[in-house]
């Protein structure tokens, strides 16, 4: 060995490391050659160019040493793209290797050939691939199966012409489960990119083959099989039952992805089941594995929680007794806490509400401000969902207000406003406590909430006029949301106590119409003014009309049934994490805006009665300024915005404005603006409603209709305007919309002005 150290030292100094490696690669000793190849690979990984050594490295490919062979293959895969001509040097060895006695080497050769994504090699790939697909050894066959997908990816025609697709389809019937699994993986992958979508259609025969292989193949194979099983449409309830029975054992797998894939199959097949007893049994079996997923790494918990959220919307009977496991630990990452909180609310019922309330109260004393706010909102949602518990919730909220922690107080007031809307006339006794905190409010939504309460209960609050007066001092400086509330509250006050407040209302309307540029505020002031001056009775009927309470079925955080079903079909995908169809955030951006709209239109069909003709057709004017069919986009808003609200971080990227998701982000922005921009001509609850979404729309629209019937005096034009305004008030109002929308707003201030213009036109 010593003899060699001298020249090595010498070459090292003169020609650099590559020259030295060159010598080593040609060494007569196998060990030295192997070490040299290892060094070549090491250099390659750190980015040094060792492509010059290609012929020497490839020469070492012909060896019985498996490790050496693999190293050479690694090198080949890396440099094949940059040296396509040289790859041909290796082809002979590859082809020879696919005939090797050792199945491992045959498999390795065919696998590597497939990974060298160079056209030239394709000519030489087909023959060996054909052989390997028919190999006696299952290990070789399973490797070859995947190789067909690689070939397909580069040249579909060649794969079809050579009959590989058919052979692959036959492999689904292979006797070895692993081969079946790989054939399924390859076919599913090819199906996705095939033009006619006829590469892999799951029929009864294929389904049975897959079920037979399911138990025996490894975890990744199981995921693939379960994913493909979900595509199958059972003929009847009986068949669906038997599939479910075969899938249930997969819930007991340690791999979370297997569990969730099995849950997807079960959730889809549940639709076909007609046997209630069986269905209930199945649902019972689904809970424990879902709970167990929560003991995994936080990322796995996150995906699980987002999916559990969907599952609960579809099947509220799952996990009924397991609310405890969703309680947050203080060191859970914030994204996990947020999702747990959502689930806790979904699981809230009259039996566990006390337990949940004390838990939420605990959260409200944590340090993470965002989480504290969400916890307080959650208390409000408890009160709205469970009537019997509303008093306890209010008491908890009062306790929180007494902490005098500023953001806690503000959030609590916003929440209490919603409780007032749900249970009118029930908790007026707490109004004085709320008013004590008047001076500490600096957030528009909290301020607006308190002003709304004062306006709504003006007749019971002795010093209502003083309070309003107090707020009016800073009228011009206020955020438009607060201005709108003040405007409405003042009009309410005037209608309820005309004697005390004539002067105030006059002053407010004058200021609003003359000094405020915001068209929202200004126009509403005009509407009020005209109403009051033409027919005070009509004004009363409009402004003080009885508002429909917030619906228990808080539609804001519920997905539309159409979208929900689509997402259930996609449990354990990115779509299920985003709660959006994959087309809105993935892949071909050029089409995605279109896809968004399509999805929205499809959804809108579900909601047809809710939207009504009127709203769809009226805003034709803004359509000219916006790129495409705005109405469809607006529709989309509603569905698009309902999920990023609960997870604001996930709102689509905002970097370049041409891409699809961004388009929807713009829309979003509009939605948030509209919601904050108010439009609640009828009593001023729209802008800050806690619950709404589609439900909100519904309320708004119906209301406007009933209104227009009531008031004969109002011109038909203005009543139409009300309809629209009220309708749009429903857009994008979600409990946590504020945080999400504020973020988006700050990022893109320019858009909000166009939004205002749009609103103006409405």
């Amino acid at each position, binding site marked *: 060995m010593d003899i060699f150290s001298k020249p090595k030292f010498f070459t090292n100094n003169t020609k650099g490391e590559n020259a030295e490696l060159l010598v080593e690669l040609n060494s007569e000793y196998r060990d030295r050659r192997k070490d040299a190849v290892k060094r070549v690979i090491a250099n390659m990984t750190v980015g040094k160019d060792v492509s010059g050594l290609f012929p020497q490295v490839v020469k070492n490919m012909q060896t019985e040493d498996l490790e050496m062979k693999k190293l050479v293959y690694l090198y080949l895969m890396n440099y094949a793209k940059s040296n396509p001509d040289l790859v041909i040097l290796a082809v002979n060895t590859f082809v020879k290797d696919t005939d090797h006695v050792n199945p491992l080497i045959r498999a390795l050769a065919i696998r590597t050939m497939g990974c060298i994504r160079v056209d030239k090699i394709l000519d030489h790939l087909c023959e060996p691939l054909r052989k390997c697909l028919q190999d006696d050894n299952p290990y070789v066959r399973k490797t070859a199966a995947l190789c067909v997908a690689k070939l397909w990816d580069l040249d579909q025609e060649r794969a079809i012409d050579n009959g590989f697709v058919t052979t692959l389809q036959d492999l689904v019937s292979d006797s070895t489960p692993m081969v079946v699994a790989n054939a399924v993986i390859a076919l599913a992958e090819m199906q996705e990119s095939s033009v006619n979508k006829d590469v892999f259609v799951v029929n009864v025969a294929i389904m049975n083959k897959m079920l037979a292989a399911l138990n025996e193949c490894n975890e990744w194979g199981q995921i693939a099989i379960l994913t493909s099983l979900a595509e199958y449409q059972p003929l009847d309830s009986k068949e669906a039952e038997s599939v479910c029975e075969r899938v249930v054992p997969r819930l007991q797998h340690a791999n979370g992805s297997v569990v969730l894939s099995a849950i997807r199959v079960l959730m889809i097949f549940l639709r076909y089941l007609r046997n209630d007893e069986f269905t209930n049994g199945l649902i019972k079996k689904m809970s424990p594995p879902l709970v167990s997923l929560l003991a995994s790494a936080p990322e796995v918990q*996150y995906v699980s929680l987002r999916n559990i959220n969907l599952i609960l919307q579809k099947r509220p009977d799952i996990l009924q007794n397991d609310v405890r496991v969703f309680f947050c630990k203080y060191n859970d990452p914030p994204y996990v806490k947020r999702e747990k909180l959502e689930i806790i609310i979904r699981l809230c019922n009259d039996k566990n509400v006390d337990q949940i309330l004390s838990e939420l109260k605990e959260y409200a004393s944590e340090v993470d401000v965002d989480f504290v706010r969400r916890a307080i909102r959650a208390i409000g949602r408890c009160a709205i969902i469970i009537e019997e518990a509303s008093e306890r919730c209010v008491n908890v909220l009062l306790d929180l207000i007494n902490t005098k922690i500023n953001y806690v107080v503000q959030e609590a007031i916003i929440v209490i406003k919603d409780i007032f809307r749900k249970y009118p006339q029930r908790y007026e006794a707490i109004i004085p406590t709320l008013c004590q905190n008047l001076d500490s409010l600096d957030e528009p939504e909290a301020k607006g909430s308190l002003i709304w309460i004062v306006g709504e209960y003006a007749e019971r609050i002795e010093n209502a006029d003083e309070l309003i007066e107090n707020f009016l001092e800073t009228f011009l400086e206020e955020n438009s949301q607060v201005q709108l509330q003040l405007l409405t509250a003042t009009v309410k006050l005037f209608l309820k106590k005309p004697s005390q407040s004539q002067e105030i209302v006059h002053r407010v309307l004058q200021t609003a119409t003359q000094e405020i540029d915001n068209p929202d505020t200004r126009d509403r002031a005009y509407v009020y003014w005209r109403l009051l001056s033409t027919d005070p009775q009509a004004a009363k009927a409009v402004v003080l009309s009885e508002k429909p309470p917030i619906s228990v079925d808080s539609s804001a955080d519920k997905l539309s049934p159409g979208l929900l079903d689509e997402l259930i079909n996609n449990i354990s995908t990115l779509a299920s994490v985003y709660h959006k169809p994959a087309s809105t955030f993935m892949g071909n951006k050029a089409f995605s805006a279109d896809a968004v709209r399509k999805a929205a239109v499809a959804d809108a069909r579900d909601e047809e009665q809710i939207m009504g003709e009127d709203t769809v057709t009226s805003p034709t004017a803004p359509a000219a300024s916006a790129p495409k069919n705005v109405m469809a986009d607006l529709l989309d808003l509603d569905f698009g915005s309902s999920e990023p609200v609960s997870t604001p971080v996930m709102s689509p990227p905002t970097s370049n404005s041409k*891409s699809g998701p961004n388009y929807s982000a713009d829309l979003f922005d509009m939605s948030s603006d509209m919601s904050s921009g108010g439009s609640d001509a009828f009593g001023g609850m729209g802008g800050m409603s806690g619950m709404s979404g589609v439900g909100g729309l519904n309320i708004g629209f119906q209301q406007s209709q009933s209104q227009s019937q009531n008031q004969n005096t109002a011109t038909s034009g203005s009543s139409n305007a009300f309809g629209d305004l009220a309708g749009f008030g429903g857009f994008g109002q979600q409990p946590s919309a504020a945080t999400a929308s504020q973020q988006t707003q700050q990022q893109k201030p320019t858009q909000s002005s166009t939004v205002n213009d749009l609103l103006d036109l409405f």
Partner: protein
Amino acid sequence: MIESLFVLSPTGKVIIEKHWHELIPRRVVDFFNDQVSKAMAEGEDVTREDVLPIIASPKYQLINVYRDGLTYLSPVTKEVDPMMVFEFLHRIPDIMQEYFGQVSETVIKENFVTVYQLLEEMMDDGFPLTTEPNSLKEIVPAPNILNKVITTMGATTSVSTRKMPHGMSNLPWRKAGVKYNSNEIFFDIVEEIDAIVDSTGKAVSCEAHGTIQTNSRLSGMPDLTLSFVNPRLVDDCSFHQSVRFNKWESDKVLSFVPPDGHFRLMSYRVNLPSQQNLPIQVKPSINVGANGAKFDITVSLRNTDGKPVENVVLTLPLHKSTTTLTAQCNVGHSEAAANAGYNIGVEFLINSHSLSGLKVDVLKLFNESYKPYKGVRTMTKAGRYQVRA
């Protein structure tokens, strides 16, 4: 399809990248780093762990796992099962741990070639291929020195030379022709207690997560049946591939042909009732004044069947604004280092104790004639165990 993997250092530099499909340019890492630092700039208390595990970029969905200072980033261009990606990404450090004893930037750099070979074996064209450590060790040899250590420790001893890869025997997880001079099998039952305890000592939520880690050194094709005294305790469980699920469903016994060497036979979860007697009681009393606060925490032993509780560690995170801190302990020692919401993290360990009460009854061996040495150890320790003050 998992197209690519980037392993990033704590500073966001690429340590290794691997592309199983098309090449994804490194730019994506810059975008990712920007998003991470943006997220962390949102609040004082935001740490790297708080960054969302799925981040959208204009072209890719950046799926990432952060573990021990390293980021495992997988950008995907097509709809994918994120759970699968996470499971797979977690396997990478798991396997490196098995191979190198630890995972860090330096360790990866020192073992570039092995890591590359592993990544190549673990995935084929974006689909996970071989991820079982036992099978991988046959295909990719562990680094030499460690190999020796492992040999002396007995993980891969006198097993006859194998030519067939795992996927080729009748049982994919067990190779043929295993032979030991002394046949033995060990079960380690480790229970981790996840609990939230309120200030009165009542458990708000409490569950035990147990695993049965098995080290099998048995010759031939042993067929084992392990039964428990009280299997009904288990609320949910998952098994190693080798366990016959039907047998568990019908008889509540574990029937299996074990793989050779170390493997996790079973994981289970037991929901513990809120009146559960927890092994230790932590009673905090906190007085916050204008110029400081005093925390008195009393820890007392309860219900351990006379087994000693070891390695008790209490962590009381304080707010960042804390300036000075003194800590005293009656027993043991304390470390003071200056986060609020007074929650106390608790760690402890109790040997030969199972809080859930799960007990192994008998292990029976069929199909082979030898009598193996059998060993069972149990241990209970705190998992995510917190006391609210």
